[in-house]
């Protein structure tokens, strides 16, 4: 029980912001759901609700296709500050 209390309770950040529709061009919103290597984070780690997780998945995939977000970040093509890509 003591271990559990260490962490704050997870909640869906998109529900809090009352987001009805996600635009793939607004990549800042997807930041919560992306790992450092730009993988889609699982719901059990981010705390997203099912509805918003499905929206996030679709939006990230669209943003990747439009070259707004990288598909992979590997050791071969290192970006110094990967999250700067989002803030353009």
């Amino acid at each position, binding site marked *: 029980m003591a271990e559990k209390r260490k962490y704050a309770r997870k909640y869906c950040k998109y529900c809090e912001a009352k987001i*009805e*529709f996600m*635009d*793939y*061009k607004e990549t800042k919103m997807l930041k919560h759901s992306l790992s450092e290597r730009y993988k889609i984070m699982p719901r059990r780690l981010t705390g997203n609700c099912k509805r918003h997780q499905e929206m996030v998945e679709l939006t990230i995939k*669209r943003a*990747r*296709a*439009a*070259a*707004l*977000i*990288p*598909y992979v970040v590997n050791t071969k*093509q290192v970006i110094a500050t990967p999250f700067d*890509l989002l803030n*353009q």
Partner: protein
Amino acid sequence: MRHYELLTVLKPTLTEEETKAKVDFVKEILEKNGAQIAAFQEMGTRRLAYPIQKLERGYYSVFYFTAPTSAILEVERLIRITEEFIRFMSVKYENQKEMAYWNKQAEKFALKVEKEVEAEETLDEESPKEATTEDLVSEEVVSTETVVVVEEAKATQE
């Protein structure tokens, strides 16, 4: 007629005139195929997340339009043929929530002619405001009693 959004990425190596010509080209083929363009969003040249055809940058532009379903296939075919486009993506807006967002975006990026009119209107509004502040300053000089009133008025304005 359905609601769509079309994102195109042009090569950064083109000159300004050429990019403009290509944007007009897209508009033309959309309208030729029975589409009504509601808005055009220019995202400008920005870094690509990964190189496409060994290019690091791309010129982004987004079109919001309504079109019959058959138009998309033809427009995509034409864009695919044109070499200057390194990437494109069309998105369909279907349910109510998506449509609401489409309308919002269409209003936000309504075609340029309307925007200029709005800009002029705002300019007109600003000019009388400046005049009033000047009047207030002149009143300050006239009497010290009115200064307090003027300051209050300024505070409310702010």
